[in-house]
């Protein structure tokens, strides 16, 4: 199961040293790649470099860029000693831990349960992926009203069914954190579910049957055969969710605005607040550079350990 940690770059590129370096026509493949490369450079790298560039400046929104002051590493120095940054980083990590753990577990479990062609499974599958189609802004609105202390359904039914007193969900640090975690789970568990079920259904049936014949029970089949065989899919799902945790902010922006205090303020929302509420664009850029570094480090670590590209399930 465990792969020896391997440098993905050297593993992916066996250098054919013996061959002549430039064969006739060696440019042809590049000709096909260049248009896509240009789009990627423009669309992806420009904003990243712009963020990097701005992070060395003190620049307020509304002022022309020429008027920005170059202040070197000041923004970065400030960031590392800024308790607010550490606080939102901690919120982000806690949020990521709970949402991803629960979403992965729940999504995989549901996929395993609904994988079989039992009656009604396909209807349930369709209903279940609906949250994925709702825009995050709308998700934020829906759940803000569901959690509303006065008119929300949640308080109403908690009272009507369980006799629980109304809670000020979005006004209490812990309850608000719980609320955004729950909302994220509601929206993103279907994502895990849908790609895991696709992976399970693509498994060669004879391999699964072989494990039945070898005497594997239901649990052993899941943990020793099925899940290891879709490991690369699980890794990619995990990766996409992790990146999303550092990226997504719309739901919190609408539900809580990051509050109360900074109890639901994720890193990306904090950057947004810095940039557009306190108008410190340079400083916000410096924090977003931190975000990029974190996401890049996590992705590289996961890809190096699991190497999903190499682990394609042939045979």
């Amino acid at each position, binding site marked *: *199961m465990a792969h020896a940690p391997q440098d993905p770059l050297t593993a992916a590129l066996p250098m054919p040293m013996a061959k002549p370096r430039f064969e006739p026509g060696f440019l042809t493949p590049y000709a096909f790649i260049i248009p896509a490369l240009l789009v990627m450079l423009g669309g992806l790298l420009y904003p990243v470099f712009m963020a990097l560039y701005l992070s060395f400046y003190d620049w307020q929104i509304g002022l022309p860029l020429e008027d920005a002051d170059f202040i070197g590493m000041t923004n970065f120095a400030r960031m590392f000693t800024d308790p607010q940054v550490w606080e939102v980083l901690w919120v982000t990590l806690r949020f990521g831990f709970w949402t991803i753990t629960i979403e992965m577990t729940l999504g995989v479990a549901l996929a395993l349960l609904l994988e079989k062609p039992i009656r009604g499974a396909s209807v349930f599958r369709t209903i279940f992926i609906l949250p994925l189609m709702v825009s995050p802004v709308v998700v934020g609105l829906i759940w803000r009203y569901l959690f509303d202390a006065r008119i929300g359904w949640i308080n109403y039914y908690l009272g009507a069914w369980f006799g629980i007193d109304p809670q000020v969900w979005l006004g209490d640090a812990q309850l608000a954190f719980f609320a955004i975690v729950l909302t994220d789970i509601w929206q993103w568990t279907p994502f895990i579910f849908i790609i895991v079920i696709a992976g399970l259904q693509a498994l*060669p049936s*004879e*391999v699964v*049957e*072989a*494990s*039945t*014949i*070898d*005497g*594997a029970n239901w649990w*052993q089949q899941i943990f*020793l*055969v099925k899940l*290891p*065989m879709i*490991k690369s899919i699980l890794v990619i799902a995990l990766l996409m969710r992790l990146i999303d945790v550092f990226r997504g902010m719309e739901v919190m922006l609408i539900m809580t605005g990051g509050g109360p205090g900074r109890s639901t303020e994720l890193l990306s929302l904090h950057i947004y607040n810095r940039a557009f509420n306190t108008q410190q664009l340079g400083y916000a850029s410096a924090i977003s550079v931190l975000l990029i570094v974190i996401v890049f480090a996590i992705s590289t670590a996961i890809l190096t350990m699991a190497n999903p590209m190499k*682990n394609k*399930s*042939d*045979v």
Partner: protein
Amino acid sequence: MTGVVLRNVSKSYGAATVIPNLSLSITEGEFVVFVGPSGCGKSTTLRMIAGLEKVSGGNIEIAGKDVTWARPKERDIAMVFQSYALYPHMNVGDNMSFALRLAGTPKDEIARRVQVAADMLELTPYLTRKPRDLSGGQRQRVAMGRSIVRDAYCFLFDEPLSNLDAKLRSSMRTELALLHKKLDRTMVYVTHDQIEAMTMADRIVIMKDGLIQQVGSPKQVYNTPVNTFVATFMGSPSMTLLPGELTDEGGTIKVRGAGFNLPLPDRLRARAAASPTRAITLGMRPEHFAAEARTPDFAAVDLTVRVAEYVGSSQYLAADLGGQAITAAVEVGPESDLLGDGRYYFDTSRLYLFDRKTELAL
């Protein structure tokens, strides 16, 4: 009764009946081969024995126990799949030991059995490799190894050699026959290749459209096929079938048709006389043609050769006999030039007769 017994087993998918009614008893230690054209229900039958497919009717016994509704793991069977079905995330050794590990076999016992199987299949150098780093033939042997470490009561094989090249296939055939001798276990083997069936089987089961056509030793199904289907299915190249009439020439019954008028061998004379119909189908196996009359039983036939194929010491002829296409395999030695039109001889002691309407052997 030990062995594997199928009693009135049937299988339908909704309205489609794949196996109408199948009964067969396989004795313990026997090597039985199911053979038949694609889609005739061989895999379905095998999968019902394995418990991967529920029966629609009838029952199945393995080693004297009714296992009709038992799960696969309760049947003491091992199976080799057509696609090998190796676990891609496990190395060769782990693939082979998976069942034993699940069964809680002691570690040293597992290691010993894997080693024995790996030695037998020449897989020892590959034990730590993943399946994707093996060739097709090696994967095939791993699949085989995974089943033989089990020491199951019954081994099921679903076209395990179909993905191999001709040479590997023939060596694996020998390997399997040896394996059967060594393990002395009941083996049920599915193939659509009649050569595999002939070379390996103790008994062959020939199926068509979910129905058993004939069950018998290779010798029996080759020499006394019950109908034209079996006659043409078994043997390579295939038997030629020609329409003919039974005629009575001065007290001796002969079979006559376009381009031939052949005397009957002793074994068929009485049956031909008792036949309710004169309209028959004559069966001639290609290998019973010759360039010269070797015994008094050989009768002359004039062939127009359309194509002669050199296959070493024989040549396959696609020829015309009285305007009808036939195949002949003539042994003329490897030095011979390609054969042409002319007089050839057919061994009449080897001819086959079938009722033209019912297609059953006389």
